[in-house]
């Protein structure tokens, strides 16, 4: 069964590109463009193998979502690898994300989609 990646990203254009790339690499994709959709998916007990999370979202920020994921009652969700994929790159943002528990902090503009896919593969396999 293909691994499931949940992409939480408010920019529809970027979301489309990320989803297309990861689908091509053989992953199943769920997407959320705001916290409401994200929480619905997280709480729905859909099997999620990795979360790709943007930080600047329209309602709550990515940190709040990350916090909720880590405190989730279901151990499977609480332990899921999270890649922060954002153009925020200040020390304080990286430190805050790290303190909440992430696998990787990737600054969007520094990486290509191939490199993103390679990182996903490194974390959860093909």
């Amino acid at each position: 069964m293909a691994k499931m990646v949940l992409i939480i990203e408010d920019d529809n254009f970027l979301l489309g590109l990320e989803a297309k790339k990861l689908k091509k690499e053989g992953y199943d994709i769920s997407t959320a463009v705001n916290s409401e959709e994200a929480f619905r998916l997280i709480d729905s007990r859909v099997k999620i193998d990795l979360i790709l999370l943007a930080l600047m979202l329209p309602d709550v920020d990515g940190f709040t979502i990350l916090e909720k994921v880590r405190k989730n009652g279901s151990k499977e969700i609480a332990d899921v690898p999270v890649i922060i994929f954002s153009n925020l790159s200040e020390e304080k943002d990286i430190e805050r994300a790290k303190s909440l528990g992430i696998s990787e902090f990737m600054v969007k503009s520094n990486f290509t989609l191939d490199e993103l896919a390679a990182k996903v593969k490194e974390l959860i396999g093909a």
Partner: protein
Amino acid sequence: MANDAELKKIEQENQRLAQLCSMKSEMVSLNAHQIKTSLSAQKWIIKMFLDGDLGALTPEQENLMQKAYESNDRAIELVSDMLADNKKEELAEKKFEFSPVDLSELIDSVKFDFSGEAYSHGVEMIFLHPEEDIPPVDADKEKMRMVLQNLLDNAIKYSGNHGKVFITLSKKDDQVQVSVKDTGVGISPEGQKHIFEKFYRDPEAEKKEITGSGIGLFTAKNVVERHGGKIWFESRPEAGTTFFFTIPIRQKGGVA
């Protein structure tokens, strides 16, 4: 002498300006973030073309796409620099808070933060750890971090492909000395006269299209001097540049 009413007015005006400045800085940061988002999308799409994901390209198309990719890279670097400068100015305006800082640990941490940047420039960073124990210095940690970031960032940018950056840390009497050496082209004689001036850019760097704003070294000098230290460099054409700075182990009347 200004009377109380005048002083109060000046104080209020000061507060208003500080508020305005902080709002401006937030706006710059937000706009830069949005610009970076759109540049990221362009980068990914150009890369898809270059990789042939959207069909084969003619040599001319490929050549132009490659140029677009490089131009996009420069734009991303400019916006990143703008964000970093915005942050530097913000930080430089904040009060200095002194506490004991382990410079060896701080260098390791900054070096780690720059590992991606060094890798993408094909540069190796080497921290020659001191043989003796270096006592903590009485310093403002975040501002010291900024000084190290500025020096490492420059050293990586100017070292060129296959370059090396050497960092040393040593104790000299009641001071701790840090050096950052690159294997770049050196600073031009004209540049050497102005390198610590705000907004100054070495014409050689401009020619090589190395991005920068001319704020980094100016801020580094200010921060080092506010600690009672000194900053200087040695540079020879084609043989690279070494920046040195010292920080007193204890600030006069300090807390360490």
